[in-house]
């Protein structure tokens, strides 16, 4: 079980994408790799879900995109966080922290 990637908690993909992009503009594959690295292999994102998430975020105005050349001079779409996206990431992070703390407390209390 340990080496099999686990599913994301529902609704957290968007937050994770925002977090990844908070560091620097990235293309799609870069986001997958970064998420995998940061989660130490726990989360592996399917290309389909990734693009759905990216489109959703873009529609909501939280990220924007432009075509740029990669380091290997290949054309790829780079995504950047907007001002609104940055705010949303902050509030979601805070909210998440509260929720996790609460959940942890509950789980610890009951054990």
């Amino acid at each position: 079980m340990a080496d099999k990637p686990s599913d994301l908690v529902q609704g957290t993909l968007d937050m994770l994408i925002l977090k990844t992009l908070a560091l620097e503009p990235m293309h799609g594959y870069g986001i997958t790799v970064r998420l995998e690295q940061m989660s130490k292999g726990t989360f592996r994102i399917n290309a389909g879900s990734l693009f759905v998430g990216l489109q959703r975020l873009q529609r909501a105005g939280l990220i924007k995109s432009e075509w740029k050349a990669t380091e290997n001079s290949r054309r790829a779409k780079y995504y950047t966080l907007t001002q609104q996206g940055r705010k949303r990431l902050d509030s979601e992070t805070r909210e998440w922290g509260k929720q996790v703390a609460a959940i942890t407390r509950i789980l610890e209390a009951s054990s």
Partner: protein
Amino acid sequence: MLRNVGSGLRSLFRNQQVDRELDEEVRAYLEIAVEEKMKHGMSREEALRAVRLEHGSLDVTKEIVGAARWEALVETLWQDLRFAVRTLRKTPVFTIVAILTLGLGIGANTAIFQLLDAVRLRNLPVLNPQQLAAVRIAGGNQGMGINQDYGDLTRPVWQEIRDHQQAFSGMFAWSVAQRYTGRGSEMRHFNGLWVSGNFFRELGVRPFRGRMLVPKDEGPCPNSYGVASYSYWLRELGGRDPAEGIHLIVNNDPVQIVGVTPPDFFGMVVGDSFDIALPFCQPPDGLRRDIFEVSVMGRLKPGWTLDRASAELAGLSPGVFEATVPPDRDTATTEMYKHFRLAAYPASRGVNQLSESDYTSLWLLLGITGLVLMLACANLANLLLVRGRTREREMALRQALGAARWRLIRQLLSEGALLAAAGAVLGIALASVLSRGLLLLFSTDNNLPQFDLSLDWRVLSFVGSVAMLTCIVFAVAPALRSSRAHPSDALKSGSRGTTADHETFSLQRLIIVTQVAISVTLLAGALLFVRSFRNLVTLNPGMRERGITVAFLGYWQSNLPRERWADFQRELLEEVQAVPGVQNAATTTRVPLDGGSWEHGIRVGSAEGTSKFTWVSPDYFATMSIPIVAGRGFTNDDRTSSQRVAVVNQTFVRRFLSGIDPVGQTLLTIAEPNYPATRYQIVGIIPDTRYSSLRDETPPIAFAPATQFPAQGPWSQVLIYSGLPAATVMSAVKHRLGAKHPDVVMEFHDFQKQIMDGLVMERVMATLSGFFGLLAAMLAAIGIYGVLSYIVVMRRNEIGIRMALGANRVSVLNLVFRQTALLLALGVAIGVVVALAAAQGAASLLFGLRANDPLTFVAASALLIVVALLACYLPARRAMQVDPMVALRYE
């Protein structure tokens, strides 16, 4: 939300481009993945395999993304609607009230718009109506000659134009008049349409049965062929096939009906359907040059504008009028006639029985119903605001759970849109009933207007825009307001504001001010119209109205020689006078107040001018209860052979004989065909009486004895005075005369009713504006009541605290009333200003009072203030009865 819908739609249209971009992006993604793998030492083959295993194929990925994109859009819209339906169903009373209110409001507006559309905006149901233009004298014919309804030109003028014009590819002429079919007691009215032979061909009207009239049907009088309208054919001719031969007696001559027009063709007069169309005929003694009876129209040649056609017609005019000068006129009239100019006017919508002021009335009515709809919307907005308050918790919760604000707004708007749409559907259904009811309001005994009230794109787009507008008015502000709830504030349980929520309140206060202003405007308008109508109805015309029956007796079928006509008229009058119950009766050449007019140019001493002329039998003044203030009336001694005498009214005296003793003076009429120049001696004076309509100032009028009438025709109009009901008098006279003279055509009207029928538009305006004015006051009262009740409930704690701290009931009452008084004052002030401005536009419709009549405005304001104070009495009482303990404990 709009931007989002926009991008959704854009992506619908630019689907391909979006797909291509996505394609490229996904491909780049996979390529980069492969490269990365190769960096770690895999061969290209292995890397490709690995990537495909991990991420699936390119196509599958694209599929997932594409599906998600569309699902998202459709899904959320669908969700919104479903959610809206669910929420609305949870509050059925609110939903039903809202839909009914909107339905009624939209229905009333649509009904009036439908009427306007039918009378004013719709083209004739003929081929290419937009090419049609009418030819008229610019500025009209100044009242010369004999003028028939819709008659712009004489037939000789029409022939001149037809033979010389260049602007039209084809021209035709028509006229309308009521005539009779059948003989004797079988006689019946029909609405006749007389047409030039090419009328139907030029209009492109194809026969429903048989054939239409053609140029060769124009010939010497009498006519021998005619065409029936579809409705007349069904109603009166039993729908028989013209091929079997339909023969009628029309105006005493046999006519064969050779065809039937299609169902949608009603002739050229909107609102008035013709029965039988007959071709122009050439009378044996030639065409009269002084009867303005025909309307001339044509199809403009391609490339010709109205201006160009007018210029061409203007060039043609001197020749046309030079060739058709009416005989026996004085030089001034003849010169004026020769200087008439023809011009072309748009005619795609036919002609109309409604006058300009009738249109103004209809537009005003549309404005009034529009304002009432606004009021209703304001009340709904109020309800939604209150609902919004109760749902604030729900909204806050959903926002806390991550719903975007625009998503909430969108959902609230979906509810509004759903209500508006339901209201619009109900409105359309109601409109078809209401518009027919409206027609009934306009109808009189002998005139039921006939309009095509079917829905067309204009009506539907009107409904659509009205519904959209109402939705915006009543749903947007509450939606914006409700969705602004701050999660943390609203989630704090039981927060019952003291004087908080200024925003909600201020929005509601704005609504109250608007409602009061609109209601004052509507009430003031209603009062103006009701009082104006009352002024007309109660106006004393200077003569008897009640108990007068007008009889028209025609004896052209009795084969009397012309010399006997005058005598026969006298015999008929004596018969009428002998009918039991008839108190008095007199003949007249003009029935007063029926809209008609007859005048002659006159000279009195050195003064020149015009005067109305009426020839009456000796008992006329007694019958109509008009006193003789000086001199004498007419007697049986005033004969054909004796001195010509006249009785004139006081306006005549003021105009022509001021400062002189009028009795004994003479007046000279200027010659006209059939009316040779005549010198009359003035023998009596009567006070001023109204002449052709109640509205018009009394003109100079001269009366002369019937025996001295130079143009007696085979008919007579008799005014009968009796204390019996009109119907009894009519049947008694009909019975008596009918037994003795079966060939005499008889028609009767009730004089008073005829006068009232002339006030249809005024009556409709008074009725509807009165109704809507009261409705407006009621809606405003409901609105004020609702808002105040709400404010009192929201401030119950505060009131409780105040009372606990020693405030007495009076000061609590003041608290509530002060709220209202300010809003009321502001609303009334705005309303009066708006109403004053609006009334200026309606000034021409008013009678006997000015548009800024102070009493009206004071009364309207006072009425509304009373209603408003009543509306706030209940909430105020509830505030007074707040028990401080209960209110405080409730926390």
